[in-house]
């Protein structure tokens, strides 16, 4: 069933979007049907959806799922639309297209950041993305804050949970923390899903305790025990979940016992159809209950497990996440590939070697640090010039917060910079 059919079938009566002018489920359905009538030529073509406001985004999603061949969910830092896809909202007059009879369910494409900085598109069946949705009489009473744009995996999960359970959602994906908290207060939000870094910032407003939260979800970064303890002390009756999700595998799982990591016993028994195992390098492997996207076939082992490339450690019967095997740095939920930053540093005259790695941060989980080998004697001038160079070529969260000038870099036995995360590197 398409998303639209599911909502038509469920026939939810309440508001779907909380805003100055609330939008009901009925209105969303009608608007989506109108959009299809208005643009019949889009049928079976690919569209690239950009997020502007929640009402238009959901309407387009309902209209195009099951109507278009593919939906590309465009992150806002991505300028180029995949070839053959039509940008939505329309930037110009629609080119002449002939509608084709629809045969296959639409594939939804989400972008993951690639090592070169060019995103990889991974296709998902809409049904699999919404597998985790729990629709109960209780979940329909929730009022969600959408803290991330729904073109990202985390934001999409929240949006689907809200829509498919008949709950209501308000857009809190923009503005500073005080503005976001004021939106949550105004619409009486009682369910929030955010990264640990964002939760810390919400705590810093000193106003989080004015909300009557019933459900708190942490995801997108490693959830640490002090933060779980702080939130559970503030909302002792609430459901507190931390979730692990792999955008690539399109799967995730939730931990509800308010303890960091997950129980080691899960390595023995599968959870809701999801199986877990560790290899000799302490990488976590997952086997989803369905066939993953064909682009991942080469990374599956003979038993159908996918290497998540997350490094874990077992301590006191818990499996704790340490970080990415590839050395990918997670700055408050933003992924930074060290190689990409190293390439930018190495472009600068006088930089002979560069190593980029993570430093644990109690605020954003991790920060980017660089060790630099140079023949320049004036490192003060070089430092200022290098930072300027980084500002021109990198996103803000990718820029090293500290440049250490060192005489040499240690390489491992194969001559490569070692990237293995250690217990210190993760927090």
């Amino acid at each position, binding site marked *: 069933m398409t998303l639209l059919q599911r909502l038509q079938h469920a026939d939810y009566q309440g508001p779907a979007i909380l805003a100055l002018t609330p939008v009901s489920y009925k209105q969303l359905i009608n608007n989506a049907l109108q959009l299809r009538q208005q643009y019949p030529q889009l049928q079976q073509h690919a569209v690239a959806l950009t997020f502007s406001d929640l009402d238009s985004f959901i309407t387009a999603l309902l209209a195009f799922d099951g109507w278009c061949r593919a939906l590309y969910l465009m992150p806002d830092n991505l300028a180029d639309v995949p070839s053959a896809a039509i940008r939505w909202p329309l930037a110009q007059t629609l080119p002449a297209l002939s509608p084709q009879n629809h045969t296959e369910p639409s594939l939804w494409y989400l972008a993951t950041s690639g090592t070169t900085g060019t995103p990889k598109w991974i296709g998902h069946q809409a049904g699999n993305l919404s597998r985790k949705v729990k629709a109960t009489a209780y979940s329909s009473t929730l009022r969600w804050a959408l803290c991330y744009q729904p073109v990202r995996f985390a934001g999409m999960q929240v949006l689907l949970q809200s829509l498919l359970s008949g709950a209501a959602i308000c857009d809190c994906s923009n503005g*500073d923390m005080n503005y976001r908290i004021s939106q949550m207060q105004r619409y009486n939000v009682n369910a929030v899903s955010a990264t640990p870094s964002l939760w810390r910032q919400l705590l810093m407003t000193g106003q989080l305790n004015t909300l009557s939260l019933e459900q708190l979800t942490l995801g997108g970064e490693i959830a640490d025990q002090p933060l779980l303890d702080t939130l559970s002390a503030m909302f002792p009756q609430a459901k507190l979940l931390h979730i692990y999700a792999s955008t690539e595998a399109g799967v995730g799982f939730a931990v509800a016992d308010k303890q960091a990591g997950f129980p080691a016993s899960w390595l023995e028994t599968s959870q809701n159809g999801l199986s877990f195992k560790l290899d000799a390098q302490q990488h976590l492997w997952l086997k989803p209950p369905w066939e993953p996207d064909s682009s991942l076939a080469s990374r599956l082992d003979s038993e159908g497990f996918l290497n998540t490339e997350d490094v874990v450690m077992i301590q006191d019967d818990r499996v704790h996440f340490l970080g990415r095997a590839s050395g990918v740095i997670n700055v408050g939920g933003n992924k930074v590939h060290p190689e990409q930053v190293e390439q930018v540093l190495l472009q600068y005259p006088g930089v002979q070697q560069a190593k980029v790695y993570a430093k644990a941060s*109690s605020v954003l989980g991790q920060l980017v640090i660089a060790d630099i080998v140079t023949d320049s004697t004036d490192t003060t001038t070089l430092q200022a010039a290098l930072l300027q160079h980084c500002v021109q070529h990198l996103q803000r969260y990718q820029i090293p*917060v500290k440049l250490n000038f060192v005489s040499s870099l240690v390489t491992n036995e194969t001559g490569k910079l070692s990237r293995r995360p250690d217990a210190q590197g993760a927090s």
Partner: protein
Amino acid sequence: MELEQRIRQTLAQVAIIANCQLTDNITDDTVLLQSGLDSLGFAMLVAQLEEDLGIDPFSQMQIAVYPSTFGEFVSIYRQALVQAS
């Protein structure tokens, strides 16, 4: 150097590297996240102070207290330094 002065100095340095425009006249009542420093700048401030002072009160607290204003921020460091000594 007096702790508050030291924190102010680090704040100013970090703001330059983080490319943040600080508001004029930061007082004890200035809300940190409205001081012009965003979350990345704030993370850098805490990391730099850890190097300068040898402590990170936010990683060491069992039940974390999150400062809302500049005055609360300074006072958390003051307490943490007393406990550490």
